[in-house]
Structures are given as structure tokens and as C-alpha cells.
């Protein structure tokens, strides 16, 4: 088990390096520090001197990958690649280009509002999807199943923008059930989170239910289901005890991926409902053309996904005894 775990980690390192190189290529080779400076300064103030000052101020005045003027190992360490890209591996995301604040500090502040919104959405979606998919699978072939499936397709075909705009209009403007947008700390945050959470759950309902329904149906055609029925077990027991457990394997093992990706935040909901999380942070950075923050978020998003992948892999080996290490 330990050997397998170590092997998997060793396999992930080149992928992390690849992501780092890709991010470096996009942000420094395709879009050079000079381009960045010109974009930040605007057309009116992009003389060579001003560009140089801006680069010095934000630490982009080093050579990209090889510093011929520096002595010894500093030839490699005193470069943009090392200081701005590799440094992200040890959590040094540098400072924001537009505000100068530490990005790591901002991330630490904003990760919890993101998580507070994402967790109820995740749990709510999971429970609602499993329940509805179970109902549809139990009613397979009937009118209820067909109607349910059609409803799922309709839900999938509606833009999430429509859900949030009409959700806000109905709940906040017409019925005055929840505040339009905003955020508070402590228990007071509940009233701000409830509307975006409900909207988020409805958005994921169609595709999730449809997918889980296929998981259940796949299991229903297995031999053990026939055996259980032959034993005379009631359909309810077969469904909720035997089928549910097996059908949930692909769902449960993917939980680490979803769970970790919750930390990067939901860009759309956070922007729309003005929740000060990481999604909103990213969107603000895009609007301000703050490359440092976008770079950090892209790298962080990928690292989180890769760690989730590793955990999912491990969860799979634990849940499914047929998989031998």
C-alpha cells in the first residue's frame, strides 16, 4: 500500500512540473513581461523607461530562464522562472501586480467564504441527485421515468445565468426571502448563502441525476440483483441496500476531486452574489488584468485537482477490494 502510494506521488511530480512549465510558457513566453507592463500601464504611458520602472517595481526585470551576469548557482535562481514560477511550489505566490498585497495572504482570507458556499452546494447536489436518480431508476420504463428524464434534459439546457437571475428576482425582489447579495461573517452568513446555494444545487440537478441514473441502471442488470430478487427480497431492499452501495462506488471515489475543487470557488455564483471568495478574487483579477493573481490561481487550481486525483485513486483501492495493488 505504502509503495503504491509513493509510486503514485512520484508519478504526479512530472505532471506538476509540466503544469508549472505550461503556466510559465503562457504567462512569460507568450505574453512577455514587456507586454504585461504595457497592458498594465495603458497606451498613454508605455515609453521604454516607464516599462522598465514598472518591471523593476513588480520584480519582472530579471532574465527569463538564464541570468548570465549572476555568479554561480544564482545564474539559475536569479531568474523570472525561478522566482515567479518555480517559487509557487513552495507557496510563494508573490504580490499582486495591481494592489501589491501578498497573494498567499489573500488566498488564506478568501478560501473560507468560498468553502462555506461550495460545501452546502456539493452536499445538497449529491443527496438530491442520488435520491432523484434512485427514484427514476426504480421507475424505469414507466411514464414517470420518461418525464423525469425529459425534465433533466430541460434543466441541462437552461443557462445557469437564467437560474441565478430569476432566482434573485423571485427570492429577493418579489418575495423578499433573502438579501440580494453580500456577505457577513459568523452565523449571519447563512442568510446570504442560502439563495446562491439553492441556485447552485438546481443548476447541477439535471446532468447529475441523469448520470447517476445510468450508474444505477448499470448495476440493475447485474447478476447479483437477479440473485437478490430470486431470494425473494423486496424491491426496496434490493435497490437501497444492494444496488445503492455498488452504484455509489464511482460517485464516492470521485468525491476528493470535487471536494478539493470546492476551494477554488465558484466564479459565477461568487461574482453574482458578491461573496468575497476565491472565485470573486479571480474575476476581479481578470478585470484588473492582474497577471500575478491569475497565474497563481491557475497553478493552484491544477495542483488541487492533481491532489484530488491522487486521493480518488486511493479511495478506489480502499472501496473496491477487487483492485489489487
Amino acid at each position, binding site marked *: 500500500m505504502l509503495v503504491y502510494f509513493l509510486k503514485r506521488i512520484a508519478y504526479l511530480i512530472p505532471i506538476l512540473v509540466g503544469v508549472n512549465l505550461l503556466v510559465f510558457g*503562457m504567462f512569460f513566453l507568450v505574453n512577455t513581461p514587456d507586454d504585461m507592463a504595457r497592458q498594465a500601464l495603458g497606451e498613454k504611458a508605455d515609453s521604454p523607461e516607464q516599462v522598465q520602472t514598472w518591471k523593476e517595481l513588480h520584480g519582472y526585470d530579471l532574465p527569463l530562464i538564464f541570468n548570465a551576469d549572476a555568479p554561480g548557482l544564482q545564474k539559475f535562481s536569479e531568474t523570472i522562472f525561478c522566482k515567479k514560477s518555480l517559487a509557487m511550489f513552495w507557496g510563494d505566490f508573490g504580490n499582486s501586480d495591481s494592489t501589491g498585497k501578498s497573494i498567499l495572504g489573500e488566498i488564506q482570507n478568501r478560501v473560507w467564504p468560498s468553502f462555506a458556499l461550495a460545501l452546502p452546494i456539493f452536499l445538497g447536489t449529491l443527496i438530491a441527485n442520488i435520491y432523484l436518480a434512485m427514484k427514476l431508476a426504480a421507475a424505469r420504463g414507466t411514464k414517470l421515468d420518461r418525464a423525469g428524464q425529459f425534465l433533466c*434534459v430541460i434543466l441541462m439546457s*437552461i443557462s445557469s445565468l437564467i437560474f441565478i437571475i430569476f432566482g434573485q428576482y423571485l427570492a429577493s425582489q418579489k418575495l423578499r426571502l433573502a438579501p440580494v447579495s453580500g456577505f457577513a461573517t459568523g452565523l449571519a452568513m447563512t442568510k446570504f448563502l442560502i439563495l446562491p446555494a439553492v441556485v447552485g444545487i438546481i443548476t447541477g440537478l439535471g446532468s447529475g441525476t441523469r448520470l447517476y441514473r445510468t450508474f444505477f*441502471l448499470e448495476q440493475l442488470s447485474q447478476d447479483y440483483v437477479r440473485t437478490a430478487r430470486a431470494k425473494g427480497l423486496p424491491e426496496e431492499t434490493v435497490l437501497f441496500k444492494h444496488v445503492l452501495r455498488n452504484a455509489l462506488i464511482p460517485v464516492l471515489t470521485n468525491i476528493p476531486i470535487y471536494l478539493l475543487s470546492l476551494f477554488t470557488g465558484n466564479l*459565477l455564483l461568487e461574482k453574482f452574489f458578491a461573496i468575497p471568495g476565491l472565485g470573486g478574487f479571480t474575476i476581479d483579477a481578470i478585470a484588473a488584468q492582474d497577471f500575478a493573481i491569475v497565474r497563481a490561481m491557475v497553478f493552484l487550481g491544477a495542483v488541487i485537482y492533481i491532489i484530488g486525483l491522487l486521493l480518488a485513486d486511493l479511495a478506489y483501492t480502499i472501496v473496491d477490494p477487487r483492485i489489487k495493488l
Partner: protein
Amino acid sequence: MSWFLQNSIVILLLALAAWLAFAASKREYWRLAAKEVAAKRGALVCGVILACYLFVALLDSIGWTSPMRDDQGELLRNNSGEIVYDQGESILDKLLKPLDRRREVSYSAPLADKNYTAETQVTEDGQSLRVHNSLNHPRGHLLGTDRIGKDVLWLSLKSIRTGIIIGLLTTLIAIPFSLLMGVMAGYFGGWVDDIIQYLYTVVSSIPTILFVAAFIVIFGNGLPQLCIAMGLASWTSLCRLLRAETLRLKEAEYVAAAKALGTSSWKILFRHIVPNVLHVILITTVLRFSSEVLAEAVLTYLGIGVGADTMSWGTMINDARTELTRDPVIWWKLVSAFVFMLGLVLPANIFGDALRDALDPRLRTQ
């Protein structure tokens, strides 16, 4: 982009599609699949609706410039005596001209005969009145007009092209990468497979929305940028599917026979493997189409989509967002964008499901 280039691309794509359809019609497998889809009435209706949308987008993609004329009908020439051309119009522009010319001052409700906003008028005896002025074209706007007085029906129709381009071009950009890499990884195995798997694991570990955000921050907003960004972010999943399909096909008897006859690897790839994975590409294109159209609206709202000057359902929804707070509510622009979008995405979803069931029974959801 010049009209000449755009027209050539459109005609080239049409010719390619026609050739593929012709080649497919000769094969039993595709004919049976077409029959199966056509036998389902719902799928057939959805296919017809999709064809209508595609036709409108096509009309909006072919166009030409015409020489400008002065009031006397004489050709306008610049200082060096060359004929001056206008910006050019698509066929759809020419067809919808009457609709586009019906401008109002500002908002008006669907089929209204008065302006939405009232204006203050001073009567002869010095009293000021709030009056809703008559529209320039009373009852002439089926879906009303927007803030700057443009006809909403016209806006919705002009947005169709953007939606179709996003839905199709994104996957079209991804196909060459995915096809070449997926087939090679599956067929050759070994270190080729290792490198390609490594590449797509790296790219797919960056969350799509963040990848698109990074791309748009670097290259700016716009329809081409968005299509390329989404294409580059999404080639990995198709590549994985094609690799798996090739692994399966590699064991087929006809491949073994070709090998025994001494056919070269590349020839086997292009003659025997590629034609037999095309159904995976078609299914993926159609199934992905709807999610790309939906993604455009969200990305545009987030500021990482098409620019504000491109007509799209995303920009329409974005403009209309604050209109719901007005009293009486201005709902028509939002609802129009929503209905037009649903009218494209829902049939695409239903048609895609039917197509998948017909082409690949293993992927059937029962």
C-alpha cells in the same frame, strides 16, 4: 476578417460536410444509424430545428461588400479615383434590413404602441405632463426594443451565428489534435502513448474555466480567442475517448489481416482506424455543442467571453441583467435571449442523445 476569406472558409466547410455525408451514405453502418434517428419523431423534429438554426447562421456568414453610391446614384470614389466600398453585409443582414431600420428612442414592450419611458411635456397653459410618446413604428416590434431602441428580435436572430460558431468551431479546433494524438497513442503504444498521456494529463489538470480565463487575459476578449481557448482546453477528453476506441480496434481481425499483408502502420491508421473512430468524433461534437453554447453566456458574463461589441445571447443576458429591477419590469430582452438559447440547446441535447444511441449502442443510457 475579409469577406472573401470568410466566404471561402464557409464554403470549404460546407464542401467538407457534404463530402463526409456522401461518403457516410455509402456505408451500411451510417445508413442504419440515420434510419434509426429518423424513426424517432422527437429526434427528427429536433434535427429540423437545428437545421433551421444552422441555416440562419449560414446566411449570416456569407456576405459581400458593395460599392457606395451618393445621392444621385453615382459610384463614390476616393481622392485617387478608386471606388469606395462599404463594410459589407451578410445575406441575413440584407434580409433583415427592414427590421434593423425600425429604430426607436429607447425601451418599448413587445407589440407596444407607446414608449416605455415617459417624457415631460409642457402644455400651452404651462402645465407639465408625463407623456408616453408614440413609437416610430407602433406594434412593429414583436419582441420589443432595448435600451438604445434596437429591435430585440433582430438582436436575437443576429446572435444565432455567434452561438453556432461557439458550439461548432470549438470542437472543430480540438478535432485535429485529438484525432492525431488519440489514434497514435492507442495504436503505437509504448513511449508514444506515454508522452501523449502525459501531455493530456498536464493540460486537463488545469480547470477549464481558469484556463480560458488565463487565455483571455493574455489575448483579449473576442469570439476567435474564446473558440481557440475552449478548443485548447477541451481536446483532452476527446483524445482520451479516441485512444480507448483505437485500443479496441487495434485487436480487430481486419487490422491483423492488414498487418499480415505488410501494410505500413500509417496506412493502417488512416485507412482502417480513422474511418472507424469517426462516430466517436460526431457524437462528441453534437453532445458537446450545447454545453459550449451555454458556456459562452456564462463566460461573457464573467468578462472572459466575447467582447461587448459581439452580438450574442451572453451579451444580451449581460445587458438585460439590471433591467429586472425596473418598474414595470423590462423582461423581454432577457426572455428573448433565454428562449432563443433554449430553442437551440434543448434540440441539440435531444438530437445528440438519439444520435449516440444509434451510432454507439455501448454508450446507450437505456
